[in-house]
């Protein structure tokens, strides 16, 4: 069968099961967009390529399967880069397709030419520049295989315009199988036996869960292991949702904005089992003083993570679900009543301390608790980056894996809204909320147009303190209150802005039962933006100063009477 490169690319994507594709067209990708015309693939027109990248990420983070996005050459490709780098650091499977100037023009500084291959090289798991139409038959399935195999990640495919326009003959029996994840490396029995023995002998074991637990679909197994061992369990930001917060052994998030008791508990542990976690500096604090009394064992699918930051006494490379299942087969139940009591004591001793809801119902911790009590447990929550993100992580009760979508590694402001659109596309029928801030939301505000067009059930909550809050907080705490470029003067009226985009807009009034108003706004169908005034001086506590050991936390000062809202 004679086929053009553009039609070949589209057909290969269809064979991969790509039904929805986020992107934005331009000159060098026009042949592919022509091939999309009338195709069964649903194209989601983002209003900025970064939005397209994060819409695809939203789909991938909800489903665990590789999602795809498309952009043109030059600025289209450079606009995608942030979403690719973000996917790399959070191990999100993504396939990005970019148009490129024709082969003969590569290297001539042609219009909208940029070295996409060179730019994507350090921020993808792998990347391709397709030099001949027939390579597409190999490259496209391989890109999906690489994106989903082992530790997932983004893969970029750069396709010159003349390759899209070229024609080739693909016999019916020459179509490749769709690319699928390769079987994960199999962990030998010996280290699992050794780990089981060490865990059984430990007196104060702690499980340290990372995002890999969710990627591996091993949340239930991790909870079962915690139960079996009576091991208190801490989660990284990326692992929230792996263990329900009501679980008696759940200790919440560790690290920079952990509850104090959680970080103190890690100081007392004698064995820490890290599962699918990478010892990120926001989790460990000063590495040399992380878990100072503990021997560390590490389960990860990525061999290079073992010993990267902390040298474990045991490193187990393989699929977390498989290893945990085999570990559970070897371990009898262990009560450890004293350790269980100590964990409960530490948890009770250091609760979050928001102002009473009656005084400040819109303090973000109170707000997150209200949302957690109001929304269904399978609600998907996306965040942007900053104070609101940490308050959500501390206070919103994530009860299921893949219900929190957040930019953990790269910390990308602007992630939340497009990721929420992608989540709503991938999980029809489920409630999606994006909790953002007045700083972050402006970084991809144009995607409100995409949201309005698609009419998806996404509620965008803007925690509005007229500041880059986490910057302001650090300037207050560590830069002698010299506030430099952290006040956002003349912010827009977000409710009016929403209406200008064709989306329902609300602004909560703190003096007139704002939570009832919030509930009423959330109860209405369709997308909406809810502007939520919060106090500019509210800080995220506790906080470990950057570079300090986790035990040196700045605790919340004695509560002041709530100040009047701005």
């Amino acid at each position, binding site marked *: 069968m004679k086929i053009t490169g553009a039609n070949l690319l589209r057909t290969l994507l269809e064979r991969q099961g790509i039904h929805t594709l986020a992107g934005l067209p331009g000159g060098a990708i026009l042949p592919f967009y022509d091939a999309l015309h009338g195709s069964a693939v649903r194209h989601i027109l983002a209003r900025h390529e970064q939005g397209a990248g994060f819409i695809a990420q939203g789909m991938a983070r909800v489903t665990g399967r590789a999602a795809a996005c498309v952009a043109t050459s030059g600025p289209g490709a450079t606009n995608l880069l942030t979403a690719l780098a973000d996917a790399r650091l959070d191990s999100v499977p993504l396939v990005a397709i970019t148009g490129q100037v024709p082969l003969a023009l590569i290297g001539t500084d042609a219009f909208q030419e940029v070295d996409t291959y*060179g730019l994507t*090289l350090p921020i993808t798991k792998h990347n391709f520049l397709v030099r001949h139409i027939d390579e597409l038959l190999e490259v496209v399935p391989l890109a999906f295989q690489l994106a989903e195999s082992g530790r997932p990640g983004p893969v970029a495919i750069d396709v010159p315009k003349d390759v899209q326009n070229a024609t080739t003959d693909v016999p019916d029996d020459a179509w490749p199988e769709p690319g699928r994840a390769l079987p994960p490396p199999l962990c030998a029995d010996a280290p699992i036996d050794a780990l089981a023995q060490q865990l059984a002998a430990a007196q104060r074991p702690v499980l340290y869960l990372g995002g890999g637990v969710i990627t591996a679909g091993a949340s239930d197994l991790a909870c079962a292991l915690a139960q079996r061992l009576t091991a208190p369990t801490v989660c990284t930001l990326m692992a929230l949702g792996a263990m329900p917060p009501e679980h008696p052994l759940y200790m919440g998030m560790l690290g920079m904005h952990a509850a104090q008791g959680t970080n103190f508990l890690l100081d007392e542990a004698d064995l820490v089992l890290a599962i699918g976690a990478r010892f990120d500096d926001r989790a460990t604090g000063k590495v040399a003083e992380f878990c100072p009394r503990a021997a560390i064992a590490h389960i990860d699918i990525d061999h*290079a993570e073992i010993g990267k930051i902390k040298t474990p006494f045991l490193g187990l490379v393989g699929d977390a679900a498989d290893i945990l299942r085999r570990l559970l087969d070897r371990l009898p139940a262990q009560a450890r009543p004293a350790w269980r009591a100590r964990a409960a004591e530490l948890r009770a001793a250091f609760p979050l301390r928001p102002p009473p809801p009656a005084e400040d119902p819109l303090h973000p911790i109170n707000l997150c608790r209200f949302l957690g009590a109001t929304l269904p447990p399978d609600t998907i929550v996306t965040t942007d980056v900053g104070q609101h993100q940490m308050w959500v992580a501390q206070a919103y009760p994530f009860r299921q894996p893949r219900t929190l979508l957040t930019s953990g590694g790269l910390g990308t402001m602007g992630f939340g809204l497009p990721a929420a659109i992608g989540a709503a596309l991938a999980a029809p029928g489920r409630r999606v909320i994006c909790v953002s801030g007045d700083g972050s939301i402006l970084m991809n505000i144009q995607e409100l147009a995409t949201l309005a067009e698609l009419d998806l059930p996404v509620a965008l909550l803007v925690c509005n303190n007229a500041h880059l809050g986490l910057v302001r907080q650090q300037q207050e705490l560590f830069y002698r209150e010299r506030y430099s470029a952290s006040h956002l003067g003349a912010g827009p009226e977000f409710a009016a802005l929403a209406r200008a985009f064709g989306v329902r807009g609300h602004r909560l009034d703190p003096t007139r039962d704002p939570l009832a108003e919030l509930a009423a706004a959330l109860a209405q169908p369709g997308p909406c933006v809810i502007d939520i005034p919060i106090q500019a001086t509210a800080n995220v506590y506790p906080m470990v100063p950057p570079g300090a050991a986790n035990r040196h936390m700045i605790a919340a000062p004695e509560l002041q009477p709530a100040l009047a809202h701005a």
Partner: protein
Amino acid sequence: MPDPTATTPPRAPSTREECYVLRNIPAAAATAMSEPICNVLRYKPTTVLELRVRNHPGTMSHITGLFARRAFNLEAIVCVPRAGGAESRMLLLVAEEPRLEQVEKQLAKLYDVLAVRHRDDLGPEFFAGLTLATAG
């Protein structure tokens, strides 16, 4: 400490610390070597990695980019095609330091890298010999 500008090799190494001292270099090669290379080869503990890689445009960028991103210097590099041009073998002279293990693991993860191994039978003198070709 031997004089770094000396053109004759120092005495044969006798301890672990001295293993990196330049060995068996023809006097002509040592003379031909530019001074910075000479110093590097003489006074850093080094090791030689052999990579089996796919041979296509971009492979070299992936490998050298990885070293650059991790601020790990490549002291010397040789690449020759093998297997009818489908593959290449690369010999890398790199500093022997604890961070090398992580770089090796990251190299092994690259799709275009098919195998990584140490070539303990080769030393810096292998590369020093090649400096003859680049002298002048």
